[in-house]
């Protein structure tokens, strides 16, 4: 369960404080619910994910994680470019306290990502699709209650998308997902509820279809 209560966020720019990205955003995500985040470019979707993931702090308000939440996966974040996939995987296992069963986790990540020999090549040689495979495998190797995905499925090929969907289907009785995607099909496939971000405010919909409808209406206004 994740509680977001009265969250405001703005960033400091070179010319003083920027404009509000999020204003008075409040919602509660119950356990095991898959939620899709929709909104225009720059509506604050990634910002909200960073706040939920705990790597950024709201200017005002409160984010409470009453469960284990993954880091936001997406855009190659969290992977050190000069290290290999395996070295990165080891690092993530270690900071999550899995020193003892490191080899098991590594094997799982290697199997899921299906990178072959590239697993032992530096991340800077990876394509964006390969990065998302690795990121997805990395986060699935740990028992989070909520997984956060920032467009991580967008660059994967069809086989990878199927695999990711199957993995989440298998997890659905114990874990939830919060995802940002601009692909309607992906959202409908993965998510049940939706949050529409519009002009700094968040609107909750119990059905992702309603969220998408509202979002599309706002585009043509």
């Amino acid at each position, binding site marked *: 369960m994740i509680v977001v209560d009265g969250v405001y966020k703005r960033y400091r720019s070179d010319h003083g404080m920027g404009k509000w990205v999020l204003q008075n955003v409040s919602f509660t995500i119950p356990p095991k619910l898959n939620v899709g985040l929709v909104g225009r470019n720059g509506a604050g979707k990634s910002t909200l994910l960073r706040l939920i993931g705990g790597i*950024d702090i709201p200017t005002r308000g409160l984010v409470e994680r009453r469960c284990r939440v993954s880091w*936001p996966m997406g855009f190659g974040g969290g992977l050190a470019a000069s*290290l290999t996939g395996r070295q990165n995987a080891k690092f993530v296992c*270690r900071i999550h*306290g899995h020193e003892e069963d490191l080899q098991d986790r590594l094997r799982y990540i290697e199997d899921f990502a299906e990178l072959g020999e590239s697993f032992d090549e530096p991340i800077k040689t990876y394509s964006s699709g390969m990065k998302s495979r690795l990121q997805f495998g990395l986060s699935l190797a740990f028992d989070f209650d909520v997984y956060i995905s920032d467009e991580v499925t967008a660059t994967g090929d069809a086989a990878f998308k199927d695999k990711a969907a199957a993995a989440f289907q298998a997890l659905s009785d114990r874990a939830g997902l919060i995802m940002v995607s601009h692909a309607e099909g992906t959202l409908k496939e993965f998510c049940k509820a939706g949050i529409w971000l519009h002009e700094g405010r968040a609107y909750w919909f119990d059905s992702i279809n309603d969220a998408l409808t509202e979002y599309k209406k706002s585009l043509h206004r």
Partner: protein
Amino acid sequence: MAFADDPADVQNRNSVRSPTSITWAVWKALLLREAVARLSATRTAWLWLILDPVVQVIFLIVLFGFVLQKLIGNIDMGLFITTGVLGFGLARNTAMRIKDAITANDTLLTYRQVLAVDTVLVRAGLEALLFIISALCLFTGLGLIGYQVFPHDFLQVMLAFVALWLAGVGLGLILSVSSQLIPESGKVGGVLLGPLYFVSGIMYPPSAIPPAYQGWFLLNPFVHGIETIRTGFFPQYHTIPGVSMGYLLAFVMVTICLGLALHVRYATRVVTK
């Protein structure tokens, strides 16, 4: 909590790690990551760790040896320069390396377990480890070719090296935050550390400086550490009056406290950019 009866919730609360164990795990992981990145940056990266001080010492002997021998009398020139190069190098390299620690580990701040200050402290630890290895190699090498490498006051030499390292850590802590807030400040810090090489008494004894200017010279905290190493090394070495470990340790205290305070104050600002 509201969900105390939810079995999943109870289970998770029991398996929550303590803050200390998380920090410890992060430090271990970061240290391994940093060591691998550092030593495999180029094919001969590890070699340069040892060769860098050697090259400096040879270079300085060739340039200044002739003059220097007149100034320090019966003290061995090679060891005199080596102590200066190592002492100064430890402080400066530590400061310069950890100044960039946050930027270099930017992507890893994606994991909320990793704090900006962790990356800085771990780099400081790695610098110390690498220094110990390279200094041991250097002194072993010098010992093998016949130099008297055992200091007469071992503890004093160790203390001075530790203090110089801490001075580098303090400066680096401050610069690591300030260069995130004001990028120019990191550059200025680096530029200022360069000329210090020539006013830290590495290739000449401070006694060669006219007494009228020695007061100015002693404002540089590194001089105090380097001269303390030398008096610990050579029983017959005479430094100038005014050299004091107290001054260097005060510098250490001030910079480390200020650096850590900046890290606390700007913890979120450093992560949010």
